[in-house]
């Protein structure tokens, strides 16, 4: 009986540690995403942020020449590997033969933050990538 109680307590502890850990990285990744990425990729990640679609915000200016990637689209995001995303965030769109309008964040975010953003993006698209 005592053994069972101990096992139960240990399981709860493990669950707490894992979910807690998960929440920390996910929260930080979301904060970074909301602060930096949404400017172009939109608040929901659908590629329609104010830089991409100024008209949506009642600003008379042409839309961005290149549509930022829709992070919610599993179809689009499955074309990218995690390494593609890591490179694009760190060194900018040009590093993965995409538009330079995606700037490099390698001097803004740490490698760990970029890694967490990649995981967060996989959550947004609900996809695993190539």
């Amino acid at each position: 009986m005592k053994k069972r109680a101990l096992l139960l307590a240990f399981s709860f502890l493990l669950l707490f540690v894992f979910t807690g850990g998960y929440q920390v990285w996910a929260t930080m990744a979301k904060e970074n995403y909301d602060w930096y990425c949404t400017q172009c990729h939109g608040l929901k990640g659908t590629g329609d942020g104010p830089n991409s679609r100024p008209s949506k915000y009642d600003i008379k200016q042409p839309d961005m020449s290149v549509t930022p990637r829709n992070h919610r689209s599993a179809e689009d995001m499955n074309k990218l590997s995690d390494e593609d995303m890591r490179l694009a965030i760190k060194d900018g769109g040009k590093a993965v033969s995409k538009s330079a309008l995606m700037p490099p964040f390698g001097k803004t975010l740490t490698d760990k933050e970029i890694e967490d953003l990649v995981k967060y993006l996989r959550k947004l698209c609900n996809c695993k990538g190539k």
Partner: protein
Amino acid sequence: MSSEGARKLIVFCIALGVSIGITATTGFAGPKEGKAIFEKQNCGKCHQTQGPAKEKTFEDQMKKKGPELWYAGDKFRKEWLEEWLANPTIIRHLKYNSITEKSKGGHPSLSNAQAKDVAAYLLTLKSGAVKEGVVKEKSSPRAKLNFKKKYGCIGCHTIKKGKKKKIGGVTGPDLSEAGKRLKGDWVYMYLKKPKLFKPIKRMPVFAGIINDAEMKALAGFVASQGRKKK
């Protein structure tokens, strides 16, 4: 009184008269009066005038209601600042700190005389980090290409295409008239040491990515926008 003494007194009276005349005509009193107006108008409620920057988190930045001015003397051009304080226009398409709400303007305005005084005060505020005469404030095809195609600055900042049309992103300050507003030497230092001026911002850090010569040229390009070619 000796004739020499009388001559000095006359010269002094003339000088005093001229200076009073100038003050009365322009209404210009100077930085001290400008500071008093700044305080009376409660401008410090939204604008920080004491450096250094202290923000460490996104939350710290979000608490700020307007751009910090503790390095206004490094950043702004006198003529523009005087004009803007009397007749404020929209510099950011979106509200300060927002990426969802359009800017509606409405910054309080000052009289022309007050604007001159406050500008004189703000121009005394310097970081001590900006060296003058480093950047050549002119456009170049390479810098323009770098702004538009290589570093993607245009993704967040507006510039002019031709005489009237504006192109570019809207989350950063509009740079189509930046040459009237900003000093090239400050733009260069802002790119080179961004955390000194604004530790938390939405613009990525380009120090260590753009080399020094390109950075100076980019700053020169920005500081030439909306100005007549020399």
